[in-house]
């Protein structure tokens, strides 16, 4: 029986694969079916996953097994339940309390982390001496990094009309951005093709057994 179920599983997989691919042609009943099944399954997956992997180990198990050590966890538990009172519209506003805790935490953490990692560390990483090495490409590269970063940051300067002389660094900044976007695009082509390779591999290997 197990082998049959495995084979059935592969055929279901193939059917769903082609159903999704059919969207490339146009919207059609197969895609609609696959789409709704996908939404349903993934919502269920997330739900079950959170229960088994977040709520049980992080809340229920510690509180039930050792209450004295973990009684503080009652607070987020209560806040979590308060989140659910939204189901009853007149009490909707109560959910703002847990929301406030969540957003306050996020804001504090984000402020510090972005300040450290994306602001200070990136500035420090740009404080370089391009002439450290005799290598021409490294020197030109180092200069490009400094010029590109400065002009790029200047492009995002909002409170000044970027005209005349002030438009020049902004313009150079755009050039750098465009080169970077082109680079990301070109680079991404690779990744996207590999995804397709993965799908075709499934069809050729598991379904048709053409390749090993």
């Amino acid at each position: 029986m197990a082998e049959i179920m495995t084979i059935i599983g592969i055929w279901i997989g193939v059917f769903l694969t082609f159903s999704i691919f059919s969207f490339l042609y146009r919207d059609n009943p197969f895609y609609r079916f696959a789409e709704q099944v996908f939404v349903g399954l993934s919502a269920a997956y997330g739900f079950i996953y959170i229960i088994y992997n977040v709520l049980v180990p992080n809340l229920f198990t510690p509180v039930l097994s050792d209450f004295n050590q973990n009684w503080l966890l009652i607070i987020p538990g209560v806040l979590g339940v308060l989140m659910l009172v939204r189901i009853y519209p007149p009490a909707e506003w109560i959910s703002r309390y847990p929301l406030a805790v969540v957003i306050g935490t996020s804001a504090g953490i984000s402020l510090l982390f972005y300040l450290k990692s994306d602001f200070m560390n990136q500035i420090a990483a740009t404080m370089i001496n391009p002439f450290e090495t005799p290598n021409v490409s490294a020197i030109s590269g180092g200069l490009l990094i400094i010029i590109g970063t400065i002009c790029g940051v200047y492009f995002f300067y909002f409170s000044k009309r970027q005209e005349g002389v002030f438009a020049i660094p902004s313009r150079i900044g755009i050039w750098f951005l465009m080169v970077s976007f082109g680079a990301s695009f070109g680079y991404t082509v690779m990744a996207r093709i590999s995804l397709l390779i993965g799908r075709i591999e499934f069809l050729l290997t598991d379904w048709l057994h053409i390749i090993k």
Partner: protein
Amino acid sequence: MRHILLIASLMCLLTDVIHAQTTSFEVKDYPWDDGKKLILEWKIGAGLDSLRIQKADPEGNFITIYDTTESFGSIVDDDVQPEQEAEYLMIAYNQSTSDSVVVSRGMTPLVQWYNLQKTPLLITMLLLSGMILYYIFASKRGKEFFIRRINALDSMEEAIGRATEKGKPILFVPGIGDLDEIQTIASLTILSHLAYRAAQYDADIIVPVRFSMVLTAAREVVKEAYIRAGRADAYRSDRVFYLTDDQFGYVAGIDGIMVREQPAANFFLGSFYAESLILAETGFSTGAIQTSGTANAHQLPFFIVACDWTLIGEELFAASAYLSRDAQQLGSLKGHDFGKILCIALILVGAVLEYSGIHWLSNMFNLG
């Protein structure tokens, strides 16, 4: 045999006494830290040439953490637990004669009220926050700040207008980040503005979300916008709905909405990843006016290629100030601009200092 051992140990003891007079080992608390560091200082006495420092692991076994032949010096052990005693053994010995002195020391690292090492971070934070607050209050007092044109934002109103004319809905996707992502919150702020306009024009706005917490916040935002526009009656909570936590399940669902409901204007604003191009291409094929924006740099090319308008990086955060012309937000934006000038100045000064062989500035900013 026993006699030999006895004599040997007596000799050891004797040499110990001699060397110990000059050999020293001290463990000190690292000042102004979070209790995760201790300073170990040593001095090797005459007749000894090597030193080994051992530290007790949780089971009490001593493990060598440092070996040297320097006669004096100090190291920082940054591998200790706050307020838990750390025990050390210093073994000073002579490589050729095997004479040795063993000193044992213990110390409990103290947790102070201020972490001195984080001072550069604190200064930068206070400076930036201070300037942002200064401009916010200046703006509140009536000082006006200029803000340059952001084309993508000017076109938003037009897009809503078009949707209203055609009698088709507006699709707003607040990204795939949860509420702990500031981009998501920035997106919801823009949603507040768009929903207000949609309510005024009586256009239908659809907001599918990926996370339940975003659902909660998005409903608050849209509802409040409708109330503000005096159209509380027109608010429909089922137009702001949850699809699924799964990235591609969410995308499949939105694709379905785009081809079936045929929204005339699509807004993809927030934190986006691989799905950016799926959304933008599908939206393009339905002929909608598309406005996108994200601070995730590597997704920007796809939005730029496939959408009509794109908010690049910080423009997403500037959007709410730009749209609302709210004095406080404009002030805040001016504060960010101060940060940019600061950044440019620092990079220039830093690069010049590096060129001159002075490294303290870049070291100060290096928190990594």
